């Protein structure tokens, strides 16, 4: 290596520079003004190197720095780098790491593609970051039983690449599937395009291996059976756990046969509520919907990049239309044709109109799901040179969608944020339940605007609870929602704390997420 060393800075912990935007308990965290080259306590690093091998331990400030932020709106200097990054290859490597962390009471944060939208895998208290993407092997593909066992650093796309030759697929498909890992999908309980037919990751998860906060390896779940009525469903605790109960290292997932074809359509409605009523009617009729997304009128523009590229303008929809429903049916051609025709026929009862312009529909679907236009120009960097996408993810009762939408607009305007719009994703198999993405553009270079975004987000959380709903449907709690957990869960929060203590007695696993970090015992 032809590297000429520069003058090195003294080894100091960063201090002083604490962002005013963070919640109190994060204010004690390791927000980075300058990354120290050496750590005060190196003994646990030596142990990590001995246990894992030097090549699996990253200490260089630049290497640690890049793990200090995820996809969430934050200013460009708001990084929380870990003190050390480890690249495990096996569950045993993770176990060795956690045991050392347990001994030294060091924070351990596990992460995958770092595409979280709210800082879930950002190591806000530094410590050890476990980059699980180095564990992405396929352990077993069981074609007969339609299951796959993988290391959880495998991306959702890698799982699908592996099972494609068997005409099977994992239908849990968030937009981030190219880089979102199986472990992150479970730990974050993120969204899926095809939720209304297949549900989310928990509907695909049969069994999971974790390393607890003491370094114990546990298998949770029901092997290859699709469900169980035995014992407590500890595996379910993992969905949305954010790595606070254990580091998920392997998972057995249920696969589905790949439908032979898919037909996507779009309908416009005079009201958001009319789209909800229409979907209920389709379900009552017995149709098997594969994907259903209700967009407010504003949101459509965010997903029609190729259309705009081609025509130099936004797509036109009728002036009276307030809601757009993107819907797909998949299966054999005859079945799809019948279901589609029936759905179109029923639309008339709801003052809906089919969007005939295929280019608009295809543009939306391509942007939303396939991400395969040629040459690939992602809508995100294009649309985010000045401002970035930021969202709150509340869930509200099905009958109050429209009411909540107006509140969302009101709150966004109050905080002077440019509105992208709302998208309701149906995420529960064969039912109307949806998650909401209430999105705004955030000028992430402005501390003030990031602060206003967080206030907007927090206000929607509280509002969703007041609406008899929930503050999170696909981003989990992270540190952002932690102050409102009591509001959401009431006295049951204490039971959650106890559960956390059982799995992680020293509170080393992803501290600051869901619960404030507890003080170290003297």
């Amino acid at each position, binding site marked *: 290596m032809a590297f000429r060393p520069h003058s090195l800075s003294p080894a100091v912990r960063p201090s002083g520079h604490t962002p005013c935007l963070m919640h109190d308990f994060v204010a004690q965290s390791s927000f980075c003004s300058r990354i120290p080259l050496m750590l005060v306590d190196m003994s646990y690093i030596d142990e990590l190197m001995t246990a894992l091998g030097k090549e699996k331990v990253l200490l260089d400030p*630049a290497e640690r720095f890049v793990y200090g932020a995820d996809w969430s709106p934050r200013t460009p200097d708001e990084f929380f780098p870990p003190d050390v990054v480890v690249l495990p290859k096996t569950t045993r490597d993770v176990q060795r790491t956690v045991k050392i962390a347990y001994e030294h009471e060091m924070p351990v944060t596990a992460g995958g593609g770092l*595409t979280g939208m709210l800082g879930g895998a950002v190591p806000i208290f530094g410590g050890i970051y476990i980059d699980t993407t180095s564990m992405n092997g396929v352990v077993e593909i069981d074609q007969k039983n339609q299951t796959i066992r993988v290391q959880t650093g495998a991306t959702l796309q890698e799982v699908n690449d592996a099972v494609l030759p068997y005409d099977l697929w994992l239908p849990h498909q968030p937009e981030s599937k190219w880089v979102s890992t199986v472990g992150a999908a479970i730990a974050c309980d993120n969204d899926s395009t095809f939720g209304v037919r297949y549900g989310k990751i928990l509907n695909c998860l049969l069994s999971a291996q974790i390393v607890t906060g003491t370094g114990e390896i546990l298998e949770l779940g029901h092997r290859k059976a699709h469900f169980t009525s035995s014992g407590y469903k500890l595996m379910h605790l993992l969905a949305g756990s954010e790595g606070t109960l254990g580091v998920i290292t392997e998972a057995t997932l249920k696969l589905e046969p790949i439908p032979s074809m898919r037909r996507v359509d779009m309908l416009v409605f005079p009201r958001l509520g009319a789209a909800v009523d229409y979907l209920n009617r389709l379900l009552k009729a017995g149709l098997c919907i594969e994907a259903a997304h209700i967009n407010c009128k504003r949101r459509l523009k965010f997903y029609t990049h190729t259309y705009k590229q081609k025509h130099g303008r936004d797509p036109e929809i009728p002036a009276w239309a307030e809601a757009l429903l993107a819907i797909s049916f998949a299966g054999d051609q005859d079945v799809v044709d019948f279901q589609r025709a029936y759905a179109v026929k029923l639309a008339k009862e709801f003052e809906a109109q089919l969007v005939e312009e295929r280019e608009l529909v295809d543009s939306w679907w391509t942007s939303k799901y396939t991400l395969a236009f040629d040459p690939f120009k992602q809508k995100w960097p294009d649309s985010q040179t000045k401002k970035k996408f930021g969202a709150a993810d509340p869930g509200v009762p099905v009958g109050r969608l429209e009411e909540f939408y107006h509140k969302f607009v009101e709150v966004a305007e109050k905080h002077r944020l440019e509105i992208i719009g709302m998208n309701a994703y149906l995420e529960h198999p064969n039912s109307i339940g949806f998650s909401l993405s209430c999105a705004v553009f955030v000028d992430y270079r402005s501390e003030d605007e990031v602060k206003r975004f967080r206030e907007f987000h927090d206000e929607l959380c509280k509002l969703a609870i007041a609406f008899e709903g929930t503050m999170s449907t696909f981003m989990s709690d992270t540190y952002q929602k932690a102050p409102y957990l009591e509001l959401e869960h009431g006295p049951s929060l204490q039971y959650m704390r106890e559960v956390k203590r059982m799995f992680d007695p020293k509170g080393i696993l992803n501290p600051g997420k869901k619960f404030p970090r507890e003080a170290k015992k003297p």
Partner: protein
Amino acid sequence: MNGLEEFKDEIETCFGTSCGFCERGCPIYQAMKVKTLCMKGRNRTMLGLMQGKYEISPAVVEAAFECTLCGNCDRWCSLKNTEHTRAFREYLLKHGVEPFKEHASLVASIKNYGNPWFQPRSARNRWAKGLNIPKAAPGQQDVLFFAGCTSAVNKALVPGLVASAKLLQKAGVKFATMNQDEPCCGSTLLRVGQREAFEDLSKKNVEKFESLGIKKIVTACPGCYTTLKKVLEERGSKIQVVHIAQEVAGLVRDGKLDLRKSPERMTYHDPCHLGRLGGVFDEPREIVKAVANLVEMPNNRYESRCCGAGAGLQSAFPKLSRDLAAKRIAEAKSTGATTLVTCCPFCETQLKTVPGIKVVDLMELLLDSTAEEKEKRNGAK
């Protein structure tokens, strides 16, 4: 932060977006799984450096140079990521990082010998011996065949050049070469961070080409193709630049070559500079299809995987470079093809280092498939 400021907005946009979609197709990231060795992480590394979060360190240098500039990240993103990486290299060299000794020797050789391989200038024209190709002279020829340093001075690659010239001759194309006066295109300089040396060389090259009064340059090497095309376009030259595959595909289409097709299954490897970076995907495939049965690798066209030879990786990080080649060969074998066809001297050399499948140059394949050559071989038997 002279050198990176130009990309500050883009680097911050990458931070703002943070989708990480570049990770999926990045050959280096997929081999190493270290986030600084992919574009999202590399952009963040530059951001941290600009913000003074840390100083230049070995990992910073690796983040800049452990990359083949294959452009896969640009495929997934609207940012000019390979340009960021190139500028990152320049920045480091300007700020006290000594060039890798392997890169320094390439640069010295280009300066002293006009090629990166320490071969005398006279070696440059050996390949054309006996082919009766005229030397380019002002106003005499419209078409210049540009052999490129690597093929011209490397005996193992000479048959590809000979095949190219013979095919052009068979189809009646009138062309010339610059013999030993042919310069280096400077691609290597640009990609290892030697921007100033590259600009000096390019200025002289453009003057040379313009003085010859040529209308078209046909390059044998995809690296020369993208480099010369960009340089000439940026300087407002009207000289057209095409790769030999484009030129010859036109001849095949026009029926100017009498070809014999075999049923052999062959797969085609897109060189990064020709495919993703140059946008030429169809013409080489047309040629393969004209003479054999083409089967695609899972990762093809825009998603083709780099062979690992490019942008100084082969010289500075040989093991990693070879690992990438091995992955690509494994992918080629998985198609059931007997032969892997490519049309880049770097890819050809690199992929031949891994056993398991026959690797052939596209032009050699085509020449061997002409009726005349087939008859010759049958006669010899």
